[in-house]
């Protein structure tokens, strides 16, 4: 029992060491990102790191880019009844508020909401998300020790030892930061082409929004981008902020697919896109 405990403790410490590498490197990268305009530092780090040059990324694990699913365009059923309103049908307009008298020849057109999104048609089948090269661990309801053990083993495989065995480079902190900055700029310039600027909104408003984006290796969106604080943005009493959120979402979708280097896929698979077109004016 004691030896088992000692073995587990030893394994635990090893794993903690590995995990600390996972924690440390990304933090280093993000903190150095601010210094991306000083490439000299990054270059000087190169020779002192014992990191091999990156090999060309092996062919994607998935056999083929997933074929576009047949776009389903169901014929509208002719005999379809009126769609069920998402919100209750407003009462017959209390609209003759202005009786049509001679002195009031122009009754005001009063707005009244019509039912929201009609769900008359079945939604087109969502394309299956592309399989990721390194599948994320599935969430389990309970604590499955066997599964966790296997994850421990896998994490060992994917750590430094694996790099040494396979020769596959993991970017050093310096080169990773430089690449991160480059990737970030590549994405930024592509998205900026599709963003409608808020530069014509009043200047004293905070109109920055953040969009979470998940991409496939071929640069397509792997699922619909989401606004961080979606309710706050799209439900904002400030119409300019609401529109800025819509414009950011529309731009991220509109500009896809993105042209990005496949060998760095892991670095741009997940994006946190901060759109503030007033910041640049």
């Amino acid at each position: 029992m004691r030896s088992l405990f000692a073995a587990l403790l030893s394994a635990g410490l090893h794993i903690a060491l590995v995990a600390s590498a996972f924690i440390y490197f990304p933090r280093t990268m993000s903190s150095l990102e601010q210094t991306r305009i000083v490439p000299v530092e990054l270059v000087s780090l190169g020779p002192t790191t014992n990191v091999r040059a990156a090999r060309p990324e092996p062919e994607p694990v998935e056999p083929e880019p997933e074929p576009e699913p047949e776009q389903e365009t169901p014929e509208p059923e002719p005999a379809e009844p009126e769609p069920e309103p998402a919100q209750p049908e407003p009462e017959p307009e209390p609209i003759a508020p202005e009786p049509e008298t001679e002195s009031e020849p122009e009754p005001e057109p009063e707005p009244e909401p019509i039912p929201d999104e009609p769900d008359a048609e079945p939604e087109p089948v969502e394309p299956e998300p592309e399989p990721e090269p390194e599948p994320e661990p599935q969430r389990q309801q309970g604590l499955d020790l066997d599964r966790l053990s296997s994850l421990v083993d896998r994490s060992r495989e994917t750590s430094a030892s694996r790099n040494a065995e396979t020769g596959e480079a993991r970017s050093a902190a310096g080169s990773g930061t430089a690449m991160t900055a480059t990737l970030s700029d590549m994405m930024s310039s592509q998205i900026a082409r599709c963003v409608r600027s808020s530069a014509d909104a009043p200047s004293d408003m905070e109109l920055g929004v953040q969009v979470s984006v998940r991409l496939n290796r071929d640069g397509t969106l792997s699922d619909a981008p989401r606004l961080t604080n979606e309710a706050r943005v799209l439900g904002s009493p400030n119409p300019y902020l609401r529109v800025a959120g819509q414009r950011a979402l529309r731009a991220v979708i509109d500009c896809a697919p993105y042209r990005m280097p496949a060998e760095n896929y892991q670095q741009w698979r997940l994006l946190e896109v901060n759109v503030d077109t007033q910041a640049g004016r």
Partner: protein
Amino acid sequence: MTAVRLVLAFMVSVIFAGAAAAQAPLRVDVTSGHLDPLPIAVVDFVGEPGLAGEAGADIARVVTSDLESTGLFAPVSQDAFIEEIGNIDLRPRFSDWRVINANALLVGRVTVAEDGRLLVAFRLWDTVTETQLLGLQFVSVPENWRRVAHKVADAVYEELTGEEGYFDTRIVYVAEGTDGDGQSVRRLAIMDQDGANPSFLTDRSYMALLPNFSPSAQQITYVSFRDGQATSYLYDLETGRQEALFDAGPSLAEGGQSLSARFHPNGRQLAVSAMRRGGHDIFGFDLRMRTLRQLTSHPADDVEPSYSPEGDRIVFSSSRGGSSQLYVMDANGGEPTRISFGGGRYTAPVWSPRGDLVAFVKQQGGMFALGVLDADGSGEERILYEGYYVDTPTWSPNGRVILFTRGERSREGTQYSIWSIDLAGINLRRMPIQGQSSDPAWSPLID
């Protein structure tokens, strides 16, 4: 065993945390964008053949024209449409609209109710995110279809820009011409903001100038000029009744100063300039009591007052510093603060409905310019347009567009017409008015 499990769970959580950190998203900052017009497809509103069908096509045409006129939208030609919309309660085939580069899609339906009124329902779709942005219905008498169209356009504009629309508004202006004897004739006229439904408000027997709308859009003030005497009048657009308010003085003939009266945002007061003891000063005029209260007292001329949207301050032009410059003071009077500092003469200040800017006319070196500057005097002024003659700017109710009088030299003398320009200095357009025109006044949104 429990301890083992706990240790194992801890290790695993550490691993997960590490993995999560390793997959931290790439941060991308987008700080620039474009200002290209948004491509939008406006489909003829569906309706039974006859009244509803005709109104549907007409409404779509007016909405398209409204949106296009802003310079912020690029309506897609209906010839390019692929999907035929027959039922607006079905989701459109978004790919059909994206392929023709329509980012937004407006569909609508017109039906005739039993009482003969039109029911106009419409949906605005974002074809990129494939979401419905708007779904509304208006009810009106058939003769009112243009107003319905403007209200639809306002709703679309507001949804897609975040700004209040300005299409359901009217413009009062001065129609200029000559009578049979070659005498100059200036009559007040009114039209929809897109130039439709023009009609005269005053006759040829006297000259009418410098109209301004009340906050309710139901009244206007203007200056009538008869026998060398300028008098401020109040004109009720509902009833056509008008009444003289006070004598504004003779200096129209002498110096061409603008003596227009402008409403306080509360609609119960006016700010005017009137001559007292040889010079012009700013006065507050109480519409109920019919009393003038002097707000400035300076030997130099103080003219052309305009209230801030909150009604707490007044901007006006004054020659108290030598040349004519712009000043801001408390609405109850007090020491004014100068806000314009450039060379040349600054005149015709009008406070923006947004409150942050003042539009003005600047005369320098034989040329005129239309510009805006910060109402607090900070920052640089921005010139939006320069030309042979510029006068009488007026803001759209959302503070996005300025109408102004533009004079152009010709063989027959200076030709006056009304033009609009976007606050960004783009989208300069001539208002579709037959004959010469000047002195535009843009109404608030009509309730």
